[in-house]
């Protein structure tokens, strides 16, 4: 039997989901052709706001990459708008004249932003907020700064405003109604939201009716009905959407507000389905992803002879503005016969409202604390009778049953059909069954196989709890641990936001990311200082007051307040001259203890702080520099004697160790980095328990990493093989740079590798030459700013205040 031809007009999330379901059910039933008016693949439109604010890149929100289309033999016309459907001949024609014949056709043309019908709405600088091109237009406009006016104070308008603010624009939101998001929030909650938005430096005008957009060829301002003129370089219209049904109407299909479909999602032509925001089912049109994905499932089943029907159900939505938590679900309109339970805590900025009818929850609005959203949503969909728990209902799931349940117990209590992921309609039973069937062990696996938490991500915590319940103790969820009590953000979020928002000082980070303390603490300040040093080489000015004492004075503090001094001995090599200088220093300054370290160098212990610069001065004169034995940075490169002396040596391990150390010294890293090079697999320099180790073999060099010999004992893993010394250095520098960029402060290489996965590190550093090269180059740039001896700088007088008392009083002076 020859395959049928399926043509899809539109390449948004709904048809993408329909195809996934279709390929699951009948992989070979159709030859698929897609016409996409947008010149790109299917991406997660819900996540455009994080792209606009700079928190995500487009690549991170792609749902189906080019490979997916190739794999499924789909012909994808990118940037082709369909201009005609010939229902007699069963063909569609694109604006570029390409014609495709179909047996079945899906119209998924989505919707268009509503353009406010006022003079000037076509001026350059007036944009809508709908697709990636709009986002790019806004980001481009934001580059030059200036003023933006967002018309519309609903979900989309507020997300656009927050994004533009994050991009550095001066933003004003105009909203026709008296309070923001009046469809979801009552006036009091709207006020709380307005306060939170204004606290981010965004101006809000409610009851603002746009009269005209002013300007000659470009927009210069927005004029309101009351005569106010707001200057603007960019105007964003975010006042709503209209189904795009023009093409269907021209083709003679029944169109009302949207393209009218029967419950099986067929239009008035049985061979043509309509799907997504353009479709009108049971007299309703839909804009949220939940029901659109339901439609997709129905279309997929009916394409292969099923008899599925689309039932509109309650929907939930979440405002995606970092730092503002707002969740709404179901129907929360005020109507006779409906009751409300409201909890307000203005000081904590919390507002919760449940709309109830006949002891069943119809709608829920949560502001400031949204953790119970899915629980309320689940009860809305099931029509759970809440009369038994009415008194404590508003406090959430944790307060049911008398005592506070722990969240795991709450998740355990959910029935299998409870929905966990609202975006993708994944229930608890599907997740547990898939984990068992596919032997999944982590969140990424569950995302890949079930799509749970793969869209907006707000259910990630729930999904992790389900995984934990299913796998028991073997699963360790990557729950976000806040950096410290000064913030709720984890290390990774802080780093991402430092880059995304181009934060280049500790006060900027604390201000922009809402630090809860005035100047941080001893945990977050050193971490932030490191992240800024690493992310903005040459630009960021190191904050020595945020460094631990050892890194501030370039020596190691001892239990009695004295310091130890360790000069570099490259690759563990020293000389008579160096040893003589060390001996002289020991005698001159009466240094009580001299010890050989495990890293093949010499430690001078018990140096008085005020003597440090003089000790360093003498060591500098003999050519020795700081060994950074105190640093979260490169410590030593331990070596064996290699081919120079050893009868088993296969390569010049000592020489390579020296080269590596000379290349890497001075670099700051999340935690200390110890390296070693062994000249043969006998491994006399113990390279296989180091952060990075090299084992020389006849054919070249085996590069190892992620070992540990401290609190944890762990043998290294093989990262890759190199043929030349230069290649060894390039790989190691790239590895260390990747660690510098991804590692959390104080996280050793082995812990980082365990967290991100050895395979992903190998894929970047070994298999992808371009990425390796780029990492290497970033490392080299960073090194140009740090390879100056900190001891020499202090001998020359830098930070003199660190080494001298403010004042000194003898017995006589004090007693005067």
């Amino acid at each position: 039997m020859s395959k049928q031809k399926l043509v899809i007009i539109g390449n948004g999330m709904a048809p993408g989901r329909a195809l996934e379901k279709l390929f699951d059910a009948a992989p070979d039933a159709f030859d698929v052709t897609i016409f996409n008016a947008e010149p790109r693949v299917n991406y997660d439109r819900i996540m455009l706001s994080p792209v606009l604010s700079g928190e995500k890149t487009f690549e991170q929100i792609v749902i189906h990459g080019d490979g997916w289309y190739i794999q499924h033999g789909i012909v994808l016309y990118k940037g082709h708008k369909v201009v005609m459907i010939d229902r007699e001949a069963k063909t569609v024609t694109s604006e570029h004249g390409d014609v495709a014949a179909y047996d079945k056709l899906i119209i998924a043309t989505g919707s268009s932003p509503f353009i406010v019908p006022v003079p000037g709405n076509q001026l350059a600088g007036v944009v809508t907020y709908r697709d990636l091109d709009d986002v790019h237009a806004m980001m481009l406009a934001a580059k030059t700064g200036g003023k933006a006016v967002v018309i519309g104070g609903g979900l989309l308008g507020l997300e656009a405003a927050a994004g533009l603010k994050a991009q550095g624009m001066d933003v004003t939101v105009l909203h026709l109604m008296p309070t923001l998001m009046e469809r979801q929030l009552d006036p009091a909650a709207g006020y709380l939201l307005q306060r939170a938005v204004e606290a981010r430096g965004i101006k809000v005008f409610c009851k603002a009716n746009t009269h005209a957009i002013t300007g000659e060829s470009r927009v210069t301002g927005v004029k309101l009905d009351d005569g106010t003129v707001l200057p603007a370089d960019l105007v964003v219209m975010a006042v709503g959407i209209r189904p795009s049904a023009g093409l269907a109407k021209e083709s003679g299909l029944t169109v009302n507000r949207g393209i009218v479909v029967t419950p099986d999602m067929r239009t008035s032509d049985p061979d043509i389905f309509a799907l997504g925001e353009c479709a009108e089912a049971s007299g309703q049109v839909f804009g949220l992803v939940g029901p659109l994905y339901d439609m997709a499932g129905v279309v997929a089943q009916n394409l292969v002879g099923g008899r599925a029907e689309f039932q509109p159900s309650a929907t939930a939505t979440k405002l995606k503005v970092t730092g503002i938590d707002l969740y709404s679900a179901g129907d929360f309109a005020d109507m006779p016969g409906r009751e409300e339970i409201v909890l307000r805590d203005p000081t904590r900025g919390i507002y919760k409202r449940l709309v109830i009818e006949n002891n069943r929850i119809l709608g829920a609005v949560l502001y400031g604390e949204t953790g119970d959203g899915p629980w309320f949503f689940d009860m809305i969909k099931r029509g759970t009778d809440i009369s038994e728990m009415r008194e404590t209902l508003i406090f959430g799931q944790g307060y049911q049953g008398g005592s506070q349940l722990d969240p795991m117990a709450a998740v355990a209590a959910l029935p299998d059909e409870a929905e966990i992921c609202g975006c993708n309609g994944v229930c608890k039973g599907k997740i547990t069954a898939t984990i068992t069937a596919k032997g999944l062990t982590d969140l990424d696996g569950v995302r890949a196989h079930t799509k749970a938490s793969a869209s907006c991500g707000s259910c990630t915590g729930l999904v992790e709890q389900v995984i934990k319940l299913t796998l028991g103790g073997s699963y360790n969820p990557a729950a976000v641990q806040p950096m410290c009590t000064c913030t709720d953000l984890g290390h990774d979020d802080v780093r991402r936001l430092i880059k995304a928002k181009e934060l280049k000082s500790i006060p900027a980070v604390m201000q922009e990311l809402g630090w809860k303390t005035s100047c941080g603490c001893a945990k977050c300040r050193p971490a932030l200082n490191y992240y800024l040093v690493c992310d903005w080489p040459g630009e960021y000015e190191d904050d020595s007051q945020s460094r631990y004492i050892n890194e501030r004075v370039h020596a190691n503090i001892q239990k009695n307040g004295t310091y130890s001094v360790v000069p570099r001995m490259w690759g563990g090599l020293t000389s008579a001259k160096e040893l003589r200088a060390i001996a002289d220093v020991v005698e001159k300054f009466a240094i009580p203890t001299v010890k050989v370290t495990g890293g093949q160098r010499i430690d001078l212990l018990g140096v008085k702080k005020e003597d440090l610069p003089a000790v360093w001065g003498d060591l500098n004169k003999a050519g020795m520099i700081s060994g950074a034995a105190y640093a979260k940075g490169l410590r030593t490169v331990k070596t064996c004697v290699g081919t120079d002396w050893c009868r088993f040596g296969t390569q010049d391990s000592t020489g390579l160790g020296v080269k590596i150390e000379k290349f890497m010294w001075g670099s700051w890293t999340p935690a200390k980095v110890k390296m070693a090079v062994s000249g043969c697999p006998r491994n006399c320099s113990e390279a296989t328990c180091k952060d990075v180790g090299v084992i020389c073999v006849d054919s070249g060099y085996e590069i190892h990493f992620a070992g540990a010999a401290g609190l944890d004992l762990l043998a290294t893993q093989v990262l890759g093989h190199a043929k030349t010394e230069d290649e060894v250095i390039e790989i190691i520098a790239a590895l260390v740079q990747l660690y510098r960029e991804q590692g959390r402060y104080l996280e050793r290489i082995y812990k980082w590798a365990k967290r991100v996965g050895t395979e992903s590190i190998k894929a970047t550093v070994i298999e992808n030459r371009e990425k390796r090269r780029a990492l290497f180059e970033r490392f080299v740039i960073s090194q140009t700013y740090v390879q100056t001896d900190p001891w020499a700088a202090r001998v020359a007088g830098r930070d003199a205040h660190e080494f001298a008392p403010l004042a000194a009083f003898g017995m006589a002076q004090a007693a005067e």
Partner: protein
Amino acid sequence: MNARTSDWVEVGALDSIPVRGARVVKAPGGDIAVFRAADGAIFALRDKCPHKGGPLSQGIVHSHGVTCPLHNWVISLETGEALGADKGCTPRIPVKIENGTVLISAAALATLAA
């Protein structure tokens, strides 16, 4: 040199203490740590952590607290008390600023450490 004004002793210019940092005043009674907080407030404590005697002057200063460099105890600059779960207290030394100069109590300077 170290001019006396009644019961107070000048120990140096305020600006010679880094903001969010500390300097040491050596005294017969033991070292004194003089702290300068981010908000400009000045404090002085015995330079000795109540835990194991670590030099508090070498710690990271944050708000009105300092984290000891030896074992991360956090000591309140206002009271000298250990914060959080730890228990202990470091003696406070009277300190004030006049015309950009830091002065500490002459009596404290002369007192021998217990």
